[in-house]
């Protein structure tokens, strides 16, 4: 298929439709409202459902209801909106319903600002809502990856019967890039007859289905949480994605970075290479599960003297990097989180100061 030039937010909406998702509920928030504005026109063409909810709180439960009924469903929002949806996300994870949440991250905390940021890493990977649960978190570095990850997200959500999050940022949502929609990423919906409330008349089994998260018996609840943990452990075995950049070189410094920030780091690495300075980057594409082993191995390569995590945050992913490096190398951090994205020159200066 030929490439088309599309804005990130619109491409994410189109990717959902190409992945077989015909149900979208959302509440407007900058910088991602174009997803809704695109889908309100596009969904009727495929007999889909579009609804603008009264709040992100309500939208979270519209997603829960639709997912519980066994239909593919997606919402998109941005940081403060995801905070409001986090209640429902905890329930959806607990009740084991497949659903896709897209967070086009803006600056925080509070109202923060509407420019791109990566300050929601903790929220996305460590919880957000209450209780022991994880989202499978995919972090695209541009519009093409946003498309591919959105399409993959529906398959992964059904494989693990749980919520999957695309963690983008305002730049990915707002910029235009040439994209294509790989047809092979669209999968047939899984059979949900053994758990979804899709109506007994539509199923062979006449057993009724129950979508719930309440377990008053401590033994039952512990067993339920062990089941959830087993899924997260399986994700760690089967779903880790990352990119190692310039990793064959004898690099002295390893950068860890993801999403938009990693693109700037890539440019800086290329420019440094021209000066004869070798730097590599380990870019997690899945933030949960985190590429623990890959980070450790890249950091402990013989030539590597130190590691720096570069983020559009005040230091979030760096905590996972430190955990994975296990004290074998010094781990530094550089971050900005006001909406400006650090330039390649800035990164180059920081790296040069390290060596």
């Amino acid at each position, binding site marked *: 298929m030929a490439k088309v030039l599309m804005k990130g937010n619109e491409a994410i909406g189109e990717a959902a439709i190409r992945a077989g998702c015909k149900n979208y509920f959302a509440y407007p928030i900058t910088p991602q409202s174009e997803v809704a504005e695109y889908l309100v026109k596009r969904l009727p063409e495929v007999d889909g459902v579009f609804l603008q909810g009264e709040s992100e709180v309500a939208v979270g439960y*519209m997603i829960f209801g639709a997912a519980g009924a066994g239909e593919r469903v997606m919402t998109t929002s941005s940081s403060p909106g995801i905070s409001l949806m986090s209640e429902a996300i905890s329930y959806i994870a607990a009740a084991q319903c497949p659903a896709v949440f897209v967070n086009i991250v803006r600056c925080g905390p509070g109202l923060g600002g509407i420019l791109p940021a990566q300050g929601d890493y903790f929220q996305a990977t460590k919880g957000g809502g209450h209780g022991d649960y994880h989202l499978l978190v995919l972090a695209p570095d541009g519009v093409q990856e946003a498309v591919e990850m959105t399409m993959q997200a529906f398959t992964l959500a059904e494989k693990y019967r749980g919520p999957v999050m695309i963690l983008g940022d305002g730049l990915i949502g707002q910029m235009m890039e040439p994209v294509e929609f790989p047809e092979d990423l669209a999968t047939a919906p899984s059979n949900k007859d053994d758990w979804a409330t899709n109506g*007994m008349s539509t199923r062979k089994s006449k057993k009724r289905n129950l979508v719930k998260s*309440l377990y008053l018996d401590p033994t039952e609840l512990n067993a339920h949480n062990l089941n959830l943990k087993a899924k997260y452990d399986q994700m760690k075995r089967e779903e880790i994605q990352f990119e190692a950049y310039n990793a064959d070189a004898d690099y002295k410094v390893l950068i860890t970075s993801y999403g938009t920030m990693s693109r700037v780091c890539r440019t800086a690495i290329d420019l440094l290479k021209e000066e004869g300075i070798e730097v590599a980057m380990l870019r997690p594409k899945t933030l949960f599960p985190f590429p623990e082993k890959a980070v450790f191995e890249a950091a402990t390569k013989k030539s590597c003297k130190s590691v720096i995590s570069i983020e559009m945050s005040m230091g979030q992913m760096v905590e996972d990097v430190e955990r994975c490096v296990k004290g074998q190398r010094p781990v530094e951090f550089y971050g900005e989180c006001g909406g400006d994205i650090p330039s390649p020159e800035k990164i180059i200066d920081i790296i040069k100061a390290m060596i």
Partner: protein
Amino acid sequence: MGKTFSKPAVLSHTMTHYCPGCTHGIVHRLVAEAIDELGIMDRTVGIAPVGCAVLAYNYFNCDFQEAAHGRAPAMATGIKRVRPDLIVFTYQGDGDLASIGMGEIIHAANRGEKFTTIFINNAIYGMTGGQMAPTTLPGQRATTAPTGRNTDQTGMPIKMANLLGGLVTPAYVTRQAVLKPQQINKTKKAIKQAFQYQVENKCFSFVEVISTCPTNWGLTPLASLKWAEENLLPYYELGDVKTPE
């Protein structure tokens, strides 16, 4: 002689967890009878609230989802929009619907979502242990209003059926009670009518049911019925607030 009375098929054979004298059991039965009589059990999805009725799914044999506190109307919206062929009902108490879930119920009703809400109003929080609800009467004692509800600080009790009936969008909104047999018969008719409107894809339907809570009112079941009759009914007038015709 044929069988003249039996348990509705959609009601399960389960020991109740409700307190002695609680009217939830009556309303469950009325909902079950309506589902049976309309022949919709195999395409019905119930939504349990948070509160005493959180375990409502233990008593029904149809599909069920369990909502967070107050969010049942948003869940029902999600189900009904993606599967309009299903019959969806929420079963909610007054803390759930009139307090934390006020936003969700108003917007679902105003969008004219084609589902049915059964709203149990017993003027108090039950499951959490007798705290003040938005429906608690002036002067009525609750664990968080030990000297009685002070309306200077908490306002007047919210008449949910009247509030929702005030929306311009067409709907079926009624307030009934289950304190005496005649009222129970009328409530039965109202609940069946509410489901009938949904079967016809006509409108949002809402049945408020004035109920009792002997445990948290600190009264016997019989004294509770009398107290509700004498105190709740003068404030919460019974009857249809709005019909879609």
